[in-house]
């Protein structure tokens, strides 16, 4: 179980100025094995929240507790997948995945066996020796997910991981991720601003309000897997979330653009 208790966080440009509050009094309990999506308007503090959970940022107030232990630094059982893939360009696919095993003391053959199994499961065979520059966005993100998972985190955080992919790769990776989650039982926290994506994949959706981030809506999506993107119930849920999201969107969006579209 992952518990966020009363988290507040602010950034300040300098010590004298009042800090910009990004997250305020946010509490959230996430069951083990949950697939939670966090959505919210742009700049609402989703990414900051993920970085706090990952241990990359210490929050100004509040605590993050994973299975009874407070997270005080990065690399303590929480993996993170980035929108920008964050692969080391000088490492091949194989050696990028191997980086996830860096802190484990394993024999060479055991190490190779683990990496090989991920390569096969992720459909990366034949690309082991490629550098990231030669891969498509979808492939790169698969490598990044494999790298995060070989590290065996209890929780996998994903920060808009499919936002920069083309529609086809994105659909494929969404289905892939759902199967992966069902097979592994890992807790996944998925940040996105794509409502369709959240509804298609997750069991629970949390909607954050505009900055500072607070929970505005917390709903269960009680639909069986694999899900049909076009089913009526999915569409119904989608409509109600979109409406809530519209209320949370700063008025400037409407005045500046004249209209606002939630599709990417």
């Amino acid at each position, binding site marked *: 179980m992952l518990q966020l208790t009363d988290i507040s966080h602010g950034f300040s440009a300098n010590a004298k100025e009042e800090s910009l509050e990004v997250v305020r009094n946010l509490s959230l309990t996430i069951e083990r094995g949950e697939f939670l999506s966090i959505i919210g308007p742009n700049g609402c503090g989703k990414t900051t929240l993920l970085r706090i959970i990952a241990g990359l940022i210490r929050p100004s107030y509040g605590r993050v507790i994973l299975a009874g232990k407070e997270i005080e630094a990065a690399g303590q059982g929480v993996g993170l997948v980035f929108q920008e893939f964050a692969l080391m360009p000088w490492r091949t696919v194989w050696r990028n995945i191997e980086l996830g095993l860096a802190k484990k003391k394993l024999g060479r053959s055991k190490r190779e066996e683990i990496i090989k199994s991920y390569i096969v499961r992720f459909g990366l065979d034949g690309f082991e020796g490629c550098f990231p*520059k030669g891969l498509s966005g979808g492939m790169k993100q698969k490598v990044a997910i494999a790298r995060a998972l070989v590290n065996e985190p209890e929780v996998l955080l994903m920060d808009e991981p499919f936002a920069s992919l083309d529609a086809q790769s994105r659909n494929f990776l969404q289905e892939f991720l759902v199967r992966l989650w069902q097979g592994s039982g890992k807790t996944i926290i998925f940040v996105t601003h794509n409502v369709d994506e959240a509804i298609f994949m997750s069991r629970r959706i949390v909607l954050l309000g505009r900055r500072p981030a607070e929970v505005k809506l917390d709903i269960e999506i009680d639909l069986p897997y694999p899900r049909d993107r076009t089913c009526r119930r999915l569409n119904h849920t989608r409509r109600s979330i979109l409406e809530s999201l519209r209320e949370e969107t700063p008025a400037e969006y409407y005045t500046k653009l004249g209209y606002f579209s939630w599709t990417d």
Partner: protein
Amino acid sequence: MSCLRHSAIFFVVLVWQLMCSLKILPHIVVPSPIDVCLGLRDLVTLGLPPGYSLGGHLLASLRRVMLGFFVAAAIGIPLGLLMGWSRALHTTLRPIVEILRPIPPLAWIPMAIIWFGIGLKSAVFIIFLGAFFPMVLNTIAGVTLVSPVLVEASLTLGISRWGILTTVLAPGALPSIFTGVRVGLGIGWMTLVAAEFTGVESGYGLGYMIMTARDIQRPDLILAGTATIGLVGFAIDSMIVLVRGKVLRWL
């Protein structure tokens, strides 16, 4: 492309030769390419001073440059990595680096002679000063250019702060380090020849040879010596570019 490059050199030499043959350039001011080539032959076969062949001069100079360059790389690159990695180290050391950097290496020659005497150590010290700063600065720049998201990704994988330096920052800075090496080696050559103008203990050295040619008023030999420096510098740089292409296949 390579055809174009060679034809450009050929064209420049041709124009130069024509201007000398047509007496547009006086012989005593600018020796013709043919004169320079003949001078080069004399330098190889007879030597200057007689008995001191071009090969010997080249080897002596190469040895000095390489020694100075390797000492500079061995200190400069790790120092640059550390300064890029640790903000505290950067703020502490930056003023020292930035005060020493604008001082021309040649301004150190009198002190170098007092400290090390005329000889190998002085020359190596002067080359070290020339090659050191470009390598430090380029390495620091390379480290700071590494995307912070790569550092964050490594931290979430449980890699330590020290591990970040060796697995992320050092390989990420490699393209800039190569630039530093190329610039450093080039400046190393420039300072070497100037340093040799002040004297060498063994009688060998390209800079020393050029000064000897000046003393006996032989512009053809002077230009033959400078051409040698240019060609060898070009060859060394080409070798680095070749190695760079192999090492940085991922770029």
